């Protein structure tokens, strides 16, 4: 019975997302895409934060890796976005592997500071390599050419067409992360969060599993970056800035880092709030900070965790476990 309602819920959400693409105005579609892209970024990120407990400040670098990988291919090689995305995601993956190799040797604040340091290095590289990256201008004029698969070609030039491509990538990400969380690998990651010493005594190398989680989250950041560059038609150097790394952290915290849907809900809240507050005031950060304060202090476990707790209290029976909400 419970499963039935879950399916109904998922179907409703999907119907809503599809109808946005079909009927909504350009601005709503654009905003929805930003939510979806941020969700991809945060879903991947939360595999690292929520599951292994590692706080990274360097994921903007992988996002930028995806964006610049796509941009360079699009400008110099082919405008076919599929190759650009593959190269962008691949570049982010390799960057995560190299940077992660050094970072996962440490934990907690040392890990966080190392990721921050690497993130800053990537940012200044992008900033200073003018010939390759365009420096402070970024890479401009990335076109959304049709995705050609050889036998068919899908146009994504129009915003509403591109929306469905982003939606497809989003659903793919949700499915993959869901599978990973339920897999043996996902269980081991939970074990690392709970007690990393004990994982070693279960015969598993904590370092390798941390690195794997880091690379997976970096790869999804690259996908988000590539999609973002196609959306904005440029690759922006500030997407590599460490302050951009805070976005998936905030979003995961708002939604709830111990929940599966938390990063998605957090992305919706983040983009909408920002959009609404910016209408009224220039210093949106002040108001946003206040709202964040209320959410974090008032709702333990984020919006999703908090709501789930309310429901549980109402039904006053303990669900058998909260592994995958």
């Amino acid at each position, binding site marked *: 019975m419970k499963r039935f309602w879950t399916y109904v819920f998922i179907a409703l959400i999907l119907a809503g997302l599809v109808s946005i693409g079909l009927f909504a105005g350009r601005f709503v579609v654009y905003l929805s895409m930003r939510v979806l892209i941020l969700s991809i970024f945060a879903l991947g990120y939360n595999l690292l934060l929520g599951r292994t407990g590692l706080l990274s400040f360097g994921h903007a670098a992988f996002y930028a890796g995806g964006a610049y990988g796509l941009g360079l291919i699009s400008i110099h090689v082919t405008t076919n976005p599929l190759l650009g995305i593959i190269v962008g995601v691949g570049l982010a993956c390799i960057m995560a592997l190299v940077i992660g190799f050094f970072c996962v040797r440490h934990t907690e604040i040392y890990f966080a500071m190392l990721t921050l340091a690497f993130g800053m290095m990537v940012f200044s590289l992008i900033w200073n390599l003018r010939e390759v990256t365009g420096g402070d201008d970024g890479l401009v004029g990335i076109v959304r050419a049709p995705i050609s698969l050889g036998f068919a070609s899908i146009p994504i030039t129009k915003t509403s067409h591109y929306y469905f491509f982003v939606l497809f990538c989003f659903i793919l990400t949700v499915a993959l992360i869901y599978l*990973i969380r339920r897999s043996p690998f996902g269980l081991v990651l*939970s074990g690392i969060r709970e007690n990393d010493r004990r994982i070693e005594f279960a*015969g*598993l*190398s904590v370092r390798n*599993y941390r690195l794997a989680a880091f690379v997976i989250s970096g790869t999804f950041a690259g996908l988000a970056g590539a999609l973002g560059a196609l959306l904005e038609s440029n690759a922006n150097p500030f997407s590599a800035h460490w302050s951009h790394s805070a976005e998936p952290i905030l979003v995961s915290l708002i939604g709830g880092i111990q929940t599966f849907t938390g990063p998605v809900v957090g992305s919706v809240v983040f983009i909408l709030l920002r959009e609404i507050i910016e209408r009224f005031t220039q210093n949106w950060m002040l108001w946003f900070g206040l709202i964040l304060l209320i959410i974090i202090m008032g709702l333990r476990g984020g919006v999703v965790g908090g709501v789930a707790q309310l429901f549980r209290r109402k039904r006053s029976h303990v669900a058998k476990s909260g592994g995958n909400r």
Partner: protein
Amino acid sequence: MNAPLLEIKRLSKAFGRVIAASNIDLTIDPGVLTSIIGPNGAGKSTLINMLSGSLPVDSGRILFQGADITHLPIHHRVRMGLCRSFQVVNIFPDLTVFDNIQIPVLAVHKRARRLFRPVAREAGVREEVSQVLDRVGLAAEAQTVASALSHGDQRLLEVGIALAVRPRLLFLDEPTAGMNPVERVRVLENIRGLSEEGKTTFVIVEHDMDIVFSLSDRVVVLHHGVIIGDGTTEDIQKSARVREVYLGEEVMT
């Protein structure tokens, strides 16, 4: 066939000026339930930490089934069949009892790297987890979150996690610390039963003399990082040197 399971050769460790292990030579044979005893600060924990890989050695060699493991990382030693349990409860508190056991079993079955297959579909793993839970007597609590268990049951789970990696040699660090008498008897029965099965050789570090003398085939006494007694329980009870530094205190009080 009775090659030693573990050979320790001239193992030494010092923390500053405190000597925790001084040229320890020790051999552990398969199937012999050994206890390591000694007063506080004798170097028992240091020895276990060095053997299981938590602590680097200063000098000396550790051979496990003939292979040099002196500098191997913890998880390699565990894969080879050398594991330990802990004095303080060291479990995965927010996971269910079943998942607590499942993690090491997945590691043994080399399934822990599977990314996209639901863990629920690993039938062989699930079966073995149930077996381990039966052995430690926690089958009824399989779906309980570990932190909700009683202290004694958490200790049992602790031993269960260590057993789940199918160790050839298992160090139990004060396995009954903080247990009530009923739980204590259950654990001891368990250890004796498992030891008689012969798959795992147990080495127990214990304070409680009753446990040591009722359970062990062999007792090793440590004092200031040196082995001062090694033999059957009767040998140790008779040994004048052991009485002097260790049992003496107990006899007098």
